[in-house]
């Protein structure tokens, strides 16, 4: 009797071991040229998997990219899936020995790219010769084209969007004098207790702000040279953690709690509960104003010594069944037409990943002319004040150290 029961419970093991992975070899090879990709992709359906919580980006894909793809005879399907879930899914598929999946193009960067590369989940090499628009508008030696948060890209992903941390200050609360350095920020905080805070990591922007403080206090180079171990990073960023602890009692709620999401901080900022907000989108002040969330009171600025900037990318999973169509999709997304449209406020005003010297002048003008009305920082200034990211491997370590030494310090 007992034996029988045990057997019943062990049944799944036998089933799992017995089920040989379904080896449908539908997976395509990467095409040889863009021309052949176009030909091969005609009449197919290609999927795009990416974060679905940005209505402006969804709109851009649906209203700009989808019609462009349709003209090429390809149907585009957008699936809202965040990158954590995508990686989870791809990893499981690989573990289960599944060789063909649903995802054709995924939106990825940083730590996630590092992991995906390590696990061998991505198809490559996607050389720039395959993507005409990459060849035309991107310098192959651009640091962001060759490295994603210091992980060599090795033609496994294609730049897709340009992000840089910007601070958004309240004109009335700062009286026009924005804290453009860590020291100024500290002085202001001490004079105005309870009026500043940042989103707690592992949120993207909160984490970026902490890195920016590290750059201000110890410099990018030191952090970049530090070994990617907890001890190694701790030794280097100790002064930064001290800084964050010094400012902590002057933060909102004495730094005992932090907003959980950028949405929460946005609301606090809009209600003038705090004087400063952060965003990874350079044009955030403008898009939020358009949305009716912020008013003219919100002014973007950056630190004098610069802020962290990174790119986000597009990649093709190894399991994609439509690699030709995926190539076409990536090229379409990078076209001047699509990228120019993407700059308008209704599509989120995302800055294109084009290299500064290859960007069409129409685009640069459009960006530069809008600073005043938009309360944003001019593109050229942003480019000058752009600091590189550290290794994706160090980011979780920094977040962990923040949690131990700042959040739970008392």
């Amino acid at each position, binding site marked *: 009797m007992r034996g029988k029961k045990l057997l019943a419970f062990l049944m799944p093991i036998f089933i*799992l071991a017995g089920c040989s992975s379904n080896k449908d070899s539908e997976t395509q090879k990467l095409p040889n040229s863009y021309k052949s990709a176009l030909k091969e992709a005609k009449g197919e359906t290609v999927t795009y998997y990416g974060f679905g919580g940005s209505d402006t980006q969804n709109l851009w894909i649906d209203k700009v990219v989808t019609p462009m793809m349709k003209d090429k005879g390809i149907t585009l399907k957008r699936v809202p899936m965040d990158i954590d879930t995508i990686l989870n899914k791809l990893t499981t598929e690989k573990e289960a020995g599944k060789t063909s999946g649903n995802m054709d193009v995924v939106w990825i960067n940083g730590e996630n790219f590092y992991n995906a590369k390590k696990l061998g989940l991505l198809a490559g090499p996607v050389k720039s010769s395959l993507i005409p628009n990459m060849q035309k508008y991107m310098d192959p030696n651009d640091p962001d084209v060759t490295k994603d948060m210091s992980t060599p890209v090795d033609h496994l992903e294609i730049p897709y969007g340009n992000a840089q941390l910007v601070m958004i200050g309240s004109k009335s609360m700062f009286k026009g004098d924005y804290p453009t350095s860590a020291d100024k920020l500290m002085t202001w905080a001490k004079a105005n207790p309870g009026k500043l805070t940042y989103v707690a990591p592992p949120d993207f922007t909160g984490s970026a702000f902490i890195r920016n403080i590290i750059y201000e206090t110890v410099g990018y180079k030191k952090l970049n040279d530090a070994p990617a171990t907890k001890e190694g990073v701790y030794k280097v960023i100790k002064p930064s953690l001290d800084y964050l602890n010094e400012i902590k009692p002057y933060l909102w709620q004495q730094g005992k709690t932090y907003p959980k999401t950028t949405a929460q901080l946005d609301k606090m900022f809009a209600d003038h509960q705090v004087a400063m907000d952060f965003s990874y989108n350079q044009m955030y002040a403008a898009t939020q104003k358009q949305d009716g969330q912020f008013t003219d009171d919100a002014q973007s600025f950056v630190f004098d010594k610069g802020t962290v900037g990174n790119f986000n990318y597009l990649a093709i999973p190894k399991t994609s069944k439509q690699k030709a169509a995926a190539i076409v999709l990536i090229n379409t997304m990078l076209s001047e037409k699509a990228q120019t449209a993407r700059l308008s406020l209704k599509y989120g005003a995302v800055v294109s990943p084009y290299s500064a010297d290859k960007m069409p002048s129409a685009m640069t003008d459009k960006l530069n002319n809008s600073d005043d009305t938009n309360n944003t920082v001019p593109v050229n200034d942003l480019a000058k004040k752009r600091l590189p990211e550290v290794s994706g491997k160090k980011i979780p370590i920094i977040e962990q150290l923040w949690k131990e030494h700042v959040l739970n310090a008392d």
Partner: protein
Amino acid sequence: MRRLNRYLIFMISLLVILMPLMVIIVLSAGTNWHYPDLWPQTFNMNYVFKMLFSNHELLSSLSSSITLAIGTVILTLVIAYPTAIALSYYDFKGKSFLNVLIYLPLIIPSIAVLTNMDFVMIKFGLEGSYFGVVAVHTLFALPYAIKLLVDNLSVLKNKYELASLNLGASSRQTFIHVTLPLSRLGLQGAVMMSYIISMTQYLGTLLIGNGNFLTLSVRMFPFTQSGKYQIAAIYAIMFMLVTLIPLYIIDVLITPRRKEVRAE
């Protein structure tokens, strides 16, 4: 005085329950809502209606939500009903074990269960299929459905069935004329809960569904996460409509017969 008291309690309960729902409705139609305004500066209900009934995305996700929910309700009942009968009418070895086992899907953090279920589903070749997703939803609906049925059935135990059998009815007759009517309220509860559980599944639908089933929850959740409260609120209203209307219909269909169900 007592009567007044009662109405007071009633009103307070009503307010507590309904206030958050009102806020969601105002949120969906209002923009420029800042402290300390009690009402948004712009309020446009038309926008909401336009979104609700012309938005292709919303409508398509609606249909995939409902088809999955119906499948889940059926599968859940097929599994939960016999289990509940066994648990509430009979004593058997391993009953207490089973009693605890039932709660397991709720207890283990879902990300862990789902990742591993995804693996299992891929092996079975069910990943991305309708049945696969329904199975995941069912797993999380089962604890609620079984417990509601057990609560309901064990109150009366199987005395009436025994009487019926003793009077010479066949077991099929007994089931149709005694067991089923007696468990109608429990069944109603189980249908309701499994429908709701299916409608609200997010991660499971996304992972096992492999992007093939873009339900209301799948579309709505990212918006709540990134603070697009207005869009989230519009989805929320749609959600309320499609949950409340079918459940209300079920309720109406069942209520008139309630008298004969009463075991008095």
